[in-house]
């Protein structure tokens, strides 16, 4: 079997492998990670794939493995495909901590710090129902690409929960290839076909931005309730400005910080908490300022 890596590495080094580069969610996680790890005296490195995708994350994992840090914090982009490379990390004596997403195989990571995406989808449905009040109408889910595990889980949770609200007619989900212009186009097309559209759940940043644009273009901003996922500065700005009516926010900074704590515990032989759940909150314009700690960061 592949994977004999030879000599020892640098135990005082920690690497974060996010799911994808350049997303405020992971940047915020990186902030928490850098802060906590540096404070504990570790050298840090961050290596992100250009896409949220196992085929791009795998070479990064094996590249990091060649470098032999003490611990790796990783957001696996596929709950099965990443098992092989991550097991190699473990076999090489590197402590593995899962952040945000997790593998199906629970024997590899020392600890998992995550927020439940399906739970987030359910929260989005409840929030939307509240925003709508008793009014009747159609609701749409804008998803990214078929097969993207995180956003599929959000959509699945939403679909399950929205069924409990008989006044809301679920017209199904549309895929957007994670492109804002397709999201905008699919929102306006849905508006043409279903003029009673009353709510849209956009499962990530790009779909949210596209949906907001489509609604604005249609002159239906606010009339159609838009619930987004994540709380990047632009999204918070849109929430404040009324382009978006609610956001489901995770707590990436805490995820990153907790991940470092658990990794250090594992490295130093202290007791490790196998599973840590972090908060998910629904932000609306009303309670926005009170929840500012959940806002994501563009840079640390």
């Amino acid at each position: 079997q592949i994977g004999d890596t030879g000599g020892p590495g640098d135990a005082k080094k920690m690497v974060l492998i996010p799911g994808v580069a350049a997303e405020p969610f992971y940047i915020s996680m990186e902030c928490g990670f850098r802060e906590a790890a540096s404070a504990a005296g570790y050298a840090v490195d961050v290596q992100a794939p250009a896409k949220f995708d196992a085929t791009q994350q795998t070479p990064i994992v094996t590249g990091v493995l060649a470098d032999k840090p003490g611990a790796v914090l990783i957001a696996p982009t596929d709950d099965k495909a990443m098992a092989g490379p991550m097991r190699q990390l473990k076999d090489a004596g590197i402590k593995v901590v899962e952040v945000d997403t997790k593998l199906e195989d629970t024997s590899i990571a020392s600890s998992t710090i995550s927020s439940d995406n399906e739970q987030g989808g359910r929260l989005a449905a409840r929030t939307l129902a509240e925003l709508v009040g008793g009014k009747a109408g159609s609701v749409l889910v804008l998803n990214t690409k078929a097969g993207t595990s995180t956003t599929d889980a959000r959509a699945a949770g939403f679909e399950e929960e929205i069924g409990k609200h008989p006044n809301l007619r679920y017209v199904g989900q549309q895929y957007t290839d994670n492109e804002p212009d397709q999201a905008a186009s699919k929102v306006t097309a849905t508006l043409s076909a279903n003029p009673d559209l009353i709510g849209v759940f956009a499962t990530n940043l790009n779909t949210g931005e596209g949906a907001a644009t489509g609604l604005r273009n249609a002159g239906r901003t606010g009339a159609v309730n838009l619930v987004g996922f994540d709380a990047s500065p632009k999204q918070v700005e849109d929430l404040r400005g009324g382009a978006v009516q609610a956001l489901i926010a995770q707590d990436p900074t805490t995820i990153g910080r907790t991940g470092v704590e658990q990794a250090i515990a594992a490295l130093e032989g202290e007791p490790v908490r196998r599973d840590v759940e972090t908060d998910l909150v629904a932000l609306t314009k009303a309670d926005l300022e009170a929840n500012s700690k959940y806002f994501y960061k563009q840079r640390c």
Partner: protein
Amino acid sequence: MKPRAGLRRLAGANTLWIAVVLLVLIAVFGALRPDAVLTVFTVQTTLVETSVLLVLSVGMTYVVVTAGIDLSVGSVLVFSGVTSAMAMNALHGGDATTAGWGVVLVGLLVALVSGAAWGLVNGLLIARTGLPPLIVTLGSFGAALGAGQLISDGSNVAGVPDVLSDTLGTGTWFGVPNLVLVAAAVTAVGALVLGATAFGRHTYAIGSNEEAARRAGIPVTRHLVRVYLLAGVLAGLAGFMALAYFRVASITGHDTDNLNAIAAVVLGGTSLFGGAGSVVGTVLGVFIPAVLRKGFVIVGVNVYWQPIAVALVLVAAVWFDQSRRKARDRR
């Protein structure tokens, strides 16, 4: 005789049959959901949503007519949007949302210059050193995106002036969205320059036989630089239009713009081997997939069937167009 000659000229136009395909598509969707398809709203939004791609595709038409290819347009769009938004923010204390027209104009200039810079790099490398356009623009595809991420620290840039997004982004003029007006103007100028000027003629000549063009004294190197420059400037303009439309400079979500633009150009009858093609064809090539995607959502086709249906109609459209054209040539 006069009207018949006109009719014959029309039937002889290379774009006639692909235009027929587009009209048939619209008619079919219109018949299926007359209440939803043939409304001012649907027409307006469809036009707006294709404006940015149309501007990219006009530039791509020139490139493909020279037998080149430009994979970098989507990344250049991103780069230009980022630099433009950041410049506007910097000029207005970090958040340009309330900035005025002066700042917007500077933003436009920055977007165009950013696009031009990448176009110039592409053009110089391709024309001067003779490197394959695919490799050069694949390189700038990666590099422009990386540079955009580097400048913006990897995240979307907000703070687009309201005056910009309210006028160019969502404003209309006698019911026609302003974005559409801009795209239409670019297309009209692009079509005229390619079809009626010496610049266009030289573009065709280079694509048809580069060596013959060089021997005829056409400054091939300079001309190629200008064509890629044009594609870059138009990508910069497209980035600025996207900025006005989305009110944010997105980093992600433009990785297939290049293929979409190339597909529109080829669908419109321009050969990848250069020498022939037209901007009018490209317009049709932009609208056919856009109408299809929109129509399938409106009539409620299953999400997994949508890409399959789009693929089938695209291939069938080109097939029909080609067999009609052949029949004409055989007449």
